[in-house]
């Protein structure tokens, strides 16, 4: 959506579909509004596997339509959201989830930003305790400065 993305689009034009979305078709919509709302929520969290960074809810690719119908079928059969998600993951892998599940390989992903906040806060706190906030410790005079100081004070070198 930035132009940069559009530039990529230009380059990959021949291989991928346009991001123009038509998404959910009238004939897909479930008559039960509660189930339909759940279906929309779920499909907003599933990646369209053949598009660039679009959810199946936004995509007009045929595969996305198949997945939307699949989700609705499963919901109508009375499955819970979790069951539907597990089924899709078992079929397409973790890649289908736009919200990765927390496990050993994604711990850093989920924890990283907050860890940085914590570490940054700690650094600031430690520096404060050392006396000056975010300030670098005072440096001793350098060789040059020592010698010019001696010159000024007219000390023998």
């Amino acid at each position, binding site marked *: 959506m930035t132009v940069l993305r559009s*530039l990529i689009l*230009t380059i990959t034009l021949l291989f991928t579909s346009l991001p123009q979305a*038509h998404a959910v078709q009238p004939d897909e919509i479930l008559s039960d509004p509660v189930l339909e709302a759940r279906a929309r929520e779920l499909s907003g969290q599933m*990646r369209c596997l053949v598009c660039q*960074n679009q959810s199946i809810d936004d995509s007009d690719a045929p595969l996305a339509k198949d997945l939307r119908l699949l989700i609705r079928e499963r919901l109508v059969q009375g499955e819970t959201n979790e069951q539907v998600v597990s089924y899709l993951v078992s079929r397409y892998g973790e890649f289908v989830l736009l919200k990765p599940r927390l496990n050993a390989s994604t711990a850093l992903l989920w924890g990283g930003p907050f860890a940085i906040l914590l570490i940054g806060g700690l650094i600031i706190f430690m520096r404060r305790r050392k006396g000056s906030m975010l300030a*670098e410790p005072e440096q001793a005079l350098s060789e040059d400065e020592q010698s010019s100081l001696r010159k000024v004070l007219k000390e023998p070198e």
Partner: protein
Amino acid sequence: MIPEIGQFAVILAFITALYQFAVPMYGAWRNDSRLMAVAAPAAGLQFVLIALAFACLTWSYLSSDFSVENVFRNSHSAKPLIYKISGVWGNHEGSMLLWVGMLAGFGAAVAVFGGNLPASLKARVIAVQGSISVAFLSFILLTSNPFARLDPAPIEGRGLNPILQDPALAIHPPLLYAGYVGLSIAFSFAVAALIEGKVDAAWARWVRPWTLAAWMFLTAGIMLGSWWAYYELGWGGWWFWDPVENASFMPWLVAGALLHSAIVVEKRNALKAWTILLAILAFSLSLVGTFLVRSGVLTSVHAFAVDPARGVYVLGILCVFIGGSLSLYAWRAPTIKAGGLFAPISREGALVLNNLLLTAACASVFIGTLYPLLLESITGAKISVGPPYFNLTFGPLVVPLLLLVPVGPLMSWKRADLFAAMQRLWVAAVAALVVGIAAMAWQWRGPWLAPFGVALGAWLVAASAREMIARTKVGSAPFNVAWARFKGLPGAAWGMMLAHAGVGVLVIGVVAITSWKEEIVTVMKPGEVMQVGGKSVTYLGESPVTGPNYTADRARFQVSSGGKPVSEIWSEKRVFQPSNQPTTEVGIEPFLSGDVYVVIGDRAGENGRTVRSYFHPLVWMIWFGGALMFIGGACSMFDRRYRVGAPKKAAKPVVQPAE
């Protein structure tokens, strides 16, 4: 002939950039004013040469010279003039030429406007700027030549992707690039300061306008892109957490942090080492963004491996500049003398917190964007990181930041009274509460967090309004006194108030469209009416139309509000020639309460059309907020102290004729 002139101009610019880097740098080291003096003319010459090359490429596009491979691939003789011009940067090679052109332009601007800089600092800044040009000009020459020829020349070009044929998209890339590249100046200043070993209030004052300009360009570029996506992509999405968007968002966040920390350096001579680091990080993130976009690594790690020449080259540039500058930082930063001390509850303390939260928020964007690439290249596991991740990490980091925005400016330097600051804000707090309750009354459906989000935005707007009233004494002083105070407010104060209010307005818009969007998907026949967002939309019928390079079906709709017809809008399905590519044009009718947004889909049965109608409440606030931020930046930019503040030397006989 013309393309060859362009080709030679790029080569000459490369040589000039080498000279611009090496000679002044050496001159500054040897303290030789004659060698330092070549910096400014070299920067000017480099800019002129790249501008010439750019003009040559533009000429090739305007004259549809399909013997130039780049023109053949990205243009078509039947394309409207404006898209022939924008086609110049609508592709990899041309956009890189624009990128270095802007880089050289910023370098030349330092040469022209940097008259009050100390000679050695100016020479070093321009030299560092030259070194970046060297890297990217060699990238163009070795991997991405825009002037490559075809023999025999094809008769017709392939055309520009129709989705890019849009006025907003014609100026979006130059704005964004100006932002990316503008941060190179902050970077060059930071590296030059590290080499000089001196960071002071004057340094911060010189850096700030450049950072501000870059930040404004980024703001405008991001907002324009978002607006384009909203009206062009056809479902009213305005932000997607797409890696390419994130690539522009990360430098924006860090530039925002840098703008705030530079104030501390300028006013209090503190946070110097940190500010230098931020300046380095801001441009490093621009480079990372360039790498992400240019290497093809985003499509897939494998795309990168298939055609690695460009990706590896940019990665090399990345390593040299980021690694080099950070090493320099590690080596030299400890020699930067610490400045003023301050208590944790103080303006400085508030700005430190601002920087901490902005940096962590940027880290969430950074990690979310790069983690899938990293994980795949290490373990081979493929995961996706999409909007739900960013909502859950970026969101919680930004909310406390927004809550604190109104408090910071009311704290005094060195040591502040938090209670006194809060006391002055109670009116704003009440106003925010009232707006939140009003939001609840207006839209009782939707997520329970939404009214809090609206209240949060209102909190920022109200606090800015309070600040303005308090400073000008509107209402309490006679009109002429208040007017005089109004006019006398410094640009920086206006900048702060407008930008903070703009953030608040944007937050309200974002919360409203995210929480209360209405969507109806149905098949309509002419004459049928549909209700959305309290407005009625009547389908009038459709007719074929012909554009300069497309044919279309145009469906017309009558929008009525309160039983009265307001206007007629239309949505089109276009098929572009020569590619036969379909696009959809959206019909939008804006109201103060939000946009009625109509898109047609496929034909359905006899006379029927699939029609999607949306109501996007308060969506205009997103871009209005962005505009306020931009205007705020401009006000701050024109603050008097940047024109008269820095000491000016009476005469500077630096430039001497060569013998």
